[in-house]
């Protein structure tokens, strides 16, 4: 059973990830007083897209086709590193979060190159913005992980989250709070949520992530959508593990609580999207710098203790 | 043999004034140089009985040393430099004179027409200069040394004024007057030296001066050194007495510049080293060493200041000579192991600089200008010259493997061993500036696209001009790759003559 557990966790995450956007959409619809899309809309979309015949621009090369594949593969691999409810996944080692960070980088790189391969002005614009925000997001994310490592004295994801207990919250509450805030801001930006981006926008000029994938279709687009869902899961799981360091000892109990937490986070994103307006594009870096400041403060607090 | 060494060029020089045929005179020059070199080799070889191949061939019977002229390792070293350089210079001069005959005339920068001096005078003075120089290296009497050094000045004046036009005349005049004044001061110094030994009755012979240095009157000896230093320093080209040097080096024909920088300056250096040795034996090493180091550094600084933004490539070489004189003076002043380095640097500098001046003559012939900014893409017009020019740059800036590099390294090491950190720091700083200043010039001249001038004929790179330059540069590289044991022991012996050690 102990060998199967990590695989089960992995499969659960892989299967449940597309549910998160659905939750967000429902929350948003609730705030807007609409009925909203079905909770499983993304699953329907994926199934439909996988059956479709894609259209390719004559400009594109294999890079365009490889982009979604690489992105999705990188994110699935990242998922294999991710602890589930504070328990290690089947791929866990010292410094695995660095690997995770760079897998995210690989996904981004592949997407950006695929976007540039279309030769479209809009997709180039999106690629440029994506890279710009990454430059601010990565140090913030890094700082957050650094303070987490400092708090727990561990250097693997499972180690860090395993070492986080309720007691940690009582001794290092400000640090963890700042961290959570920072991670949440990074989550919003990295997953192109409001206020950094608006996944539902229809004006290409203002889009970031969505504009990069304008030209993709069919299974490729399915890979992209699935990858995006995984990414959201990934960040949410990081935050969830930080906020919820309670280990009851029961795997099933912990897992259930963790899943609840994940959907709670998705709901929180939905709330934020409903009550906050989108930032001007030029202000997004400031948001990420704020995230950086939060995690830097967290680290300073921790080092000063 | 020592006498023959001096008399051969003397007789040949006098004969050169009388010979009518250009061809005969040129071969006289060439063969005298070769003969002199052979004799010099024999004399140097005789110094190493059993130690060298030559000594085995020639009977190693030591000559009875006359009171006036005799050789010690220091003298032999400078004799070797002079003779070797003259060998190359003679080869170069013969080719040069033959070529100059064909197209005499137009000044490179001024554009005016001028005549060259009669070839007989030029050749004669060259040979007499060699004779005087040989005598300088052998001289064992400080007064005689003075007279001979002054003789080299006077004999080289007509050489500088080979191209008879305004600017070379100006250069000659400055050279003549400044050096004469300097040498006059050196005479004062000799008088003080004599006075210092009056009580103990030492006189001006080198041997008793060295052995009886302890009995010399210290304050007078100090005064003697100051005057001799300023006097010979003027001739050697130490800053701030160097002012004639860029003019004379740049205005004279390449072969003369090579001899001036390679041979004449070493004559004055020899004078300083001799008196320095006397002072060192009298226990004044700190006093004289300090001055040598101070003015050596000042020379390096001066050279660096004028190297930046230099507009004339022969003047650039002249300032580089000042730099090296400074380095040599520093090495001699630091004493100990640095003396070896200084002598090695002197030897290497003479060869490299002669090679560079020879090459500059080729460039002048190819481009008809001495302005750096007017020479571009030498690579295209004269590829072999360009190679030599670039190789000379690397060697003169002390790029290993070369004798110049080893000299600098040894001097720097000694400075650091003596904990002269500020000195070493300043030395490095200005060497760096010099490197940058020279790099700019050499790159901009050698490379780039060249616009041919209207009506220009292809340039013929004569082997007789290239070969001596190439040979000298190769020798210096070899010295950096393999410094033969006999040369090391000659250098060490010479260093021991003036209080140094390895």
């Amino acid at each position: 059973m102990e060998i199967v557990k990590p695989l089960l966790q992995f499969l659960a995450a892989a299967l449940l990830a597309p549910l998160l956007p659905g939750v967000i959409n429902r929350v948003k619809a609730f705030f807007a007083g609409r009925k909203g899309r079905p909770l499983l809309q993304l699953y329907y979309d994926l199934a439909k897209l996988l059956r479709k015949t894609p259209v390719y621009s004559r400009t594109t090369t294999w890079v365009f086709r490889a982009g979604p594949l690489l992105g999705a593969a990188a994110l699935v691999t990242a998922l294999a590193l991710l602890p589930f409810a504070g328990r290690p996944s089947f791929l866990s080692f010292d410094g695995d979060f660095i690997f995770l960070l760079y897998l995210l980088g690989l996904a981004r790189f592949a997407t950006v190159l695929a976007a540039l391969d279309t030769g479209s002005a809009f997709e180039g614009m999106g690629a440029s913005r994506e890279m710009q925000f990454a430059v601010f997001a990565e140090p913030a994310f890094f700082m957050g992980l650094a303070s987490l490592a400092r708090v727990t004295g561990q250097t693997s994801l499972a180690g860090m989250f395993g070492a986080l207990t309720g007691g940690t919250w009582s001794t290092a509450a400000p640090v963890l709070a700042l961290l959570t805030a920072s991670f949440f801001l990074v989550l919003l930006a990295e997953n192109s949520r409001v206020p950094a981006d608006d996944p539902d926008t229809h004006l290409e000029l203002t889009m970031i992530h969505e504009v990069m994938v304008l030209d993709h279709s069919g299974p490729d687009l399915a890979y992209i959508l699935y990858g995006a869902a995984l990414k959201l899961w990934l960040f949410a799981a990081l935050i969830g593990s930080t906020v919820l360091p309670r280990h009851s000892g029961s795997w099933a109990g912990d897992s259930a609580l963790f899943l609840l937490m994940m959907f709670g986070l998705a709901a929180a994103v939905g709330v934020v999207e409903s009550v906050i307006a989108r930032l001007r594009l030029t202000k997004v870096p400031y948001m990420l710098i704020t995230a950086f400041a939060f995690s830097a403060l967290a680290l300073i607090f921790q080092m000063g203790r | 043999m020592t006498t023959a060494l001096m008399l051969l060029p003397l007789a040949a020089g006098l004969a050169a004034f009388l010979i009518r045929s250009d061809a005969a005179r040129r071969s006289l020059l060439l063969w005298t140089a070769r003969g002199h070199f052979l004799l010099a080799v024999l004399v140097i070889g005789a110094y190493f009985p059993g130690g060298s191949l030559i000594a085995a061939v020639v009977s190693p019977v030591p000559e009875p040393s006359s009171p006036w002229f005799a050789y010690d390792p220091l003298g032999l070293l400078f004799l070797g430099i002079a003779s070797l350089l003259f060998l190359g210079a003679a080869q170069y001069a013969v080719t040069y004179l033959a070529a100059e005959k064909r197209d005499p005339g137009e000044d490179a920068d001024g554009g005016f027409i001028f005549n060259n001096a009669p070839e007989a005078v030029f050749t004669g003075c060259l040979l007499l200069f060699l004779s005087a120089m040989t005598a300088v290296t052998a001289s064992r009497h400080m007064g005689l040394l003075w007279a001979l050094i002054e003789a080299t000045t006077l004999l080289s004046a007509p050489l500088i004024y080979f191209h008879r036009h305004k600017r070379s005349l100006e250069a000659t005049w400055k050279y003549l007057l400044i050096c004469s004044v300097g040498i006059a001061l050196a005479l004062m110094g000799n008088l003080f030296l004599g006075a210092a030994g009056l009580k103990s009755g030492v006189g001006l012979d080198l041997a008793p001066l060295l052995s009886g240095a302890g009995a010399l009157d210290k304050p007078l000896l100090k005064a003697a050194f100051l005057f001799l230093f300023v006097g010979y320093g003027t001739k050697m080209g130490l800053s701030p007495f160097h002012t004639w040097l860029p003019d004379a080096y740049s205005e004279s024909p390449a072969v003369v510049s090579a001899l001036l920088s390679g041979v004449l300056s070493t004559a004055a250096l020899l004078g300083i080293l001799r008196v320095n040795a006397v002072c060192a034996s009298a226990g004044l090493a700190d006093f004289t060493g300090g001055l040598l180091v101070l003015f050596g550094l000042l020379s390096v600084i001066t050279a660096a200041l004028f190297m930046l933004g230099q507009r004339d490539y022969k003047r650039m070489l002249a300032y580089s000579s000042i730099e090296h004189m400074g380095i040599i003076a520093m090495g001699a002043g630091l004493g100990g192991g640095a003396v070896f380095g200084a002598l090695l640097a002197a030897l290497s500098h003479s060869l490299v600089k002669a090679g560079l001046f020879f090459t500059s003559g080729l460039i002048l012939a190819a481009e008809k200008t001495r302005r750096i900014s007017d020479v571009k893409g030498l690579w295209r017009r004269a590829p072999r010259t360009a190679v030599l020019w670039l190789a000379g740059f690397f060697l003169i800036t002390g790029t290993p493997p070369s004798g110049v590099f080893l000299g600098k390294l040894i001097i720097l090491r000694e400075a650091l061993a003596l904990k002269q950190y500020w000195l070493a720091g300043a030395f490095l700083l200005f060497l760096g500036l010099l490197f940058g200043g020279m790099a700019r010039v050499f790159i901009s001249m050698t490379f780039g696209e060249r616009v041919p001038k209207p009506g220009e004929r292809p340039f013929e790179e004569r082997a007789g001009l290239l070969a001596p330059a190439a040979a000298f540069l190769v020798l210096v590289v070899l010295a950096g790759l393999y410094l033969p044991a006999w040369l090391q022991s000659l250098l060490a012996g010479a260093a021991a003559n003036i209080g140094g050690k390895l």
Partner: protein
Amino acid sequence: MLLVLLSLALLLAGSALALLLARNPGRAQDAGAYYAVAASLAGLVPAVRVLLTGETETLALPWSVPLGSLSFNLDPLAAFFLVPVFLLTGLAAVYGADYLKGYAGKKPLGLAWAAFNVLTAAMVLVLTAANAVLFMVGWELMAAASFLLVLFEHEREQSRRAAFLYISAGGVGALLLLAAFALLGRSSASLDFALFSAPAGAAASAVFLLGLFGFGLKAGFVPLHVWLPEAHPAAPSQVSAVMSGVMIKTGIYGLIRLLGFLPVWEEWWGWTLLAAGAASCLIGALFSLAQHELKRVLAYSSIENIGIIVMALGLGVVASINGSPVMAGLAFAGALLHVLNHSLFKGLLFMGAGAVLHGAGTAELEALGGLGKRMPRTAAFFLAGAASACALPPFNGFAGEFLIYLGAFKALGQPGPAGLAGVIAGLSLAAAGALAAAAFSRAAGTAFLGEPRTEMAARAHEAGPLMLFSMGALALLCLLSGLAGPFLLLPVGTASAAAFGLPPALAAAASAAQPLAGVAAGFLVLLAMIAFGAVKRKVFLRGKTPAQGLTWDCGYAAPTARMQYGASSFAQPLTDFFQPVLRKIGQYPVITEYFPARASFSREAQAVFYNSVYRPVAVRIRDLAYRFSWIQHGRLQLYILYIVVTLILLLLWKL
């Protein structure tokens, strides 16, 4: 050791032959290339052997040069640096045989090959010399040979300027090294490394500073980097590959050796290295993003990577002084591993850039585009190199950075300064990594993807077979050495033990084995996922014929290649943000009418350090020199006055 000498002899023979055959460019090419390849093969054997066995091979012959001796020392550290030297120069020679063909008759190829082989020989000499005189001979030969290669296209003003900067930096650096060696060996009989006295206190710090600047000028970290982005792009591409890939590493090698000569380290050395490294990895990455020429992008990326290596060294020094051998060991191992990895991927990238230059006739990013269609293999190899350079899995760039990160994170658990050093290092790595990703996606995207922006790019042709072979081999090596991380730990460990002593090496080996294995497993998972995804995609697409069409441009009817995002526009948000550092010059369109017919936008990267630090200083110094130029006034009276006044002053002072 004898094989190393054999390879030296082969290289020198090759260069002599290339010179002799200079009249026949084809045969000169062959001679140069064959001998270089043979020398590489001969040299790889002992280098690898020493790395595997950990046994040092030495050879000492007397040398009739004062202070010199022909002492060679092939210890694991030297061998570790030799492996990439031989690998890259061998492959570069193969590449060059194709690349330089087009220059036959236009350029002196014999000379170029001779210089290339001398450059290789000089690097081998530098890495194996155990005597300072011998070392300096190699060091300066290396500078001189590469100087000639930088001047390969000396008709271009830019090349000459680059060569001037390059040789000046080299000259000044050599002087500083000379001083460092002289200081180390000031009381020994010869300048053999083994005889160096171990200085202490201020003298040790002086040696360190001299070495830092001397070697730093070769390695090219900030602020000693100004020559690098000028010189590396100017040389023929396979030489750029060698210069950026391995030659600058000799500076790193020298720094490591120097640290070995100094038994007692000061903490501030570590901080200095850390600061210089952090600054140069950030500044290198940022400037790389702002460049408009492919080879300049790569040159700045070299500055970034050298910065990473130096930063790791600094981290290691700080850590080992503060008693954390694990962290120090990881940092040192990471630095060494990155040395190897960078040489592979930077060599590949420069060769790719060379293929672009060769195929399209220009490497100006704004003139390229769509090359992926016309030179697909080059594009694939270049992308692999770019991914390595961004440290993206599963390529090798990740492994070295991973170890450094790991060291940094281990430091976080430590109290005191080590933790701070770890934070600085990790943070710089993260930021530089993001910037590098932006820079490389921009460079690769603009050059190879989209539509061709000019006629030249549209008519580009694929590189020759030998060029493709070299690039392919390097790309494969990048992938394999990425996967083989755990196996590389042994050679890295022996090299690190030779350089920094056993404890940190052992500590690193112990704490890095498991994570590296994890990373390798992760790489395999990733590859498996990719394969799985690809197969699934095939399955989904079975029986379907994808439609071809225009790129969707939001309804615009007549898209042209000029509407593409260019290199400038791609970088603009970031470069604008960092404008205070980058100081790009150029103009924004000022739109005054309602329907503007035309607008222009241009941004040009500047050599900021050169323009705002070095040039003003140089101008100031020249101005100062000119102020003293009245000394050589021309008046005889004045000249004689100098003599008199000096004499009088001397008499007054000394008597």
